[in-house]
């Protein structure tokens, strides 16, 4: 049994609007939290290089 055309239209409207709202919220979070992650990434890389240098000397 195939679903009615109206069902599909409503479903795709909900998916589109819901998806855009979810993505917008996530984009704000990732933009802010990503800056802190980048700082941490460089700190870790610098620490690991210092450690490597210490071990080789």
């Amino acid at each position, binding site marked *: 049994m*195939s*679903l009615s*055309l109206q069902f*599909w*239209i409503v479903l*795709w*409207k909900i*998916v*589109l609007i819901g*998806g*855009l709202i*979810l*993505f*917008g919220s*996530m*984009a704000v*979070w*990732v*933009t*802010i*939290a*990503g800056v*802190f*992650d*980048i700082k*941490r*990434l*460089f700190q*870790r*890389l*610098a620490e*690991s*290089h210092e450690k*490597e240098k210490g071990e080789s000397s």
Partner: protein
Amino acid sequence: MDISAETLVKTNFSTVDWVIVICYPMISVVLGIIAARFVSNMKDFVTAGQSLGTALGVATLTGTELGLITVMYSAQKGFTGGFAAFHIALAAGIVTFFVGATGFLIYRLRAMEVLTIPEFYRRRFGRKTQILGGIMMAFGGILNMGLFLKVGSMFLVGITGLTDQNLPLPAAWGLPGIPALPAIMIFLLSLVLIYTCLGGMISVVLADYVQFVVLSFGLLLTTVLAIYKLGWTNIFTAVEQLKGAAGFDPTIAEGGFGVEYIVWMGFLGLIGCSVWPTSVARALAAESPGTVKKQFMWASVSYLIRFLVPYFWGICAYVFIMTLEPQLKELFFPEAPGAEAVDNLYAMPIFLGRILPPVIIGIISAGMIAAFMSTHDSYLLCWSSVLTQDVIAPIFGDRLGPKTRIWLTRVLIVLIGLYVLYWGLLYKGREDVWDYMAVTGAIYFTGAFALLVGGLYWKRASSTGAVFALLGGSIAVIGLTPVQDGIGHFFTFVADLVPVLAGPIMAIPGVSADQIDPNVLHLEIPSARVGLVSIATTVVVMVAGSLLFPDKKTPDVAADQGR
């Protein structure tokens, strides 16, 4: 200038937008130069020292998977399939969330601390499987990215109104000019090669973050402007009038989808996040297995949106062309007999070129170029590091030092880049770009799926079964239209040579006689069917090979770490 050229040239793209588009990619080049200072070994180069936090992981996963190629092929699918194409996005989002929530495959892989999937093959199935797996992965993957450069460049050509134009060369050269498409292909490829070679995964991650920020807000803004221009209700009404129920209901096979296609898309959604090497590379670069799960649950929203929004743009382009622009309608759907239609990949960029205002159009285009670059860098890095780490290094008995490996990876990045340029200009297939991508990807991922599931969850999976599964995946190549054409020519040749075989050949599923010349045979099998048959084949041969030829020695089941 003829009427068609005049119609295609119309755009809001201005000089300011050109400045934005040219300057923006330089940010990535600068990031590559900065990142190069932090690269001291292969782990830094390939996985950014396995130090990615959740937010940066989501940004880089989105940055890689939301490439310009994705935007282009998805818009094409929306243009041809209407809202029914949304099922692909929904399947991708749901399946990615499932993978994040359960940790299916990715959690155990990250727990093993491998750098690449073939490295897992080695630890689980041995060196031969690693080398064969690396070759199959690189073959399928490099073929898969063969159209990236061309399709990405088509976006820039379409949105700037350069379609069918020649770019001028210095007068002293005495040449008429270079066509816009190959010129832009060369320009973009050069930029990507420079910064990917310099900084490896660290520069990739930074570029992905910048791209995420610009593109995510750009996507939302463009969608709002498209709705404002065409009208929310009008978009749905127009699709209903022009495409009927097939424009909404994906189960209707006449619309280009059908139940078989939906099942294939569900599997592709699973593969796209948990087996596809560029996605798995992000999982392996995460700071912990727990972070991987969080990263994928968040990224499920991106996996939904990366298809959904471009489908919607493609649908809007279709409505725009069919209802508001009769000249464009004549170009894309010519009624004159024998007239050649303009490639429908150009529809979405031309639409954006008409509705977006100056400056915004420059920022969106720059974001798209960033998307193009972030996908290219990840794919180039992925396939080149697989060839270095999992094919060349094991062949040399792992005697290659870290510096040689990084150098070799950089050489391979350039070689793959040159191939992509060549293939983009050469390949002439009839299928939608998305279906081309699915089929070429299947050469690798159908075998890889069987190996990963078997290797991580089934103790009796053997190296012989693994080799069978890897080789079994190569039958997916039959899904490509030029290969089907070649097989059709071969069948015609055989039937001409030995007429008694004509009957049995005609009985093969998908084989039919040409309507004009019945002596010429065609093979036409839907790509979804080829893909599903490939999966079934790899799973069957994996199980049969493992049961018939079990390993004598217990492998290094470090996979147990994740249990």
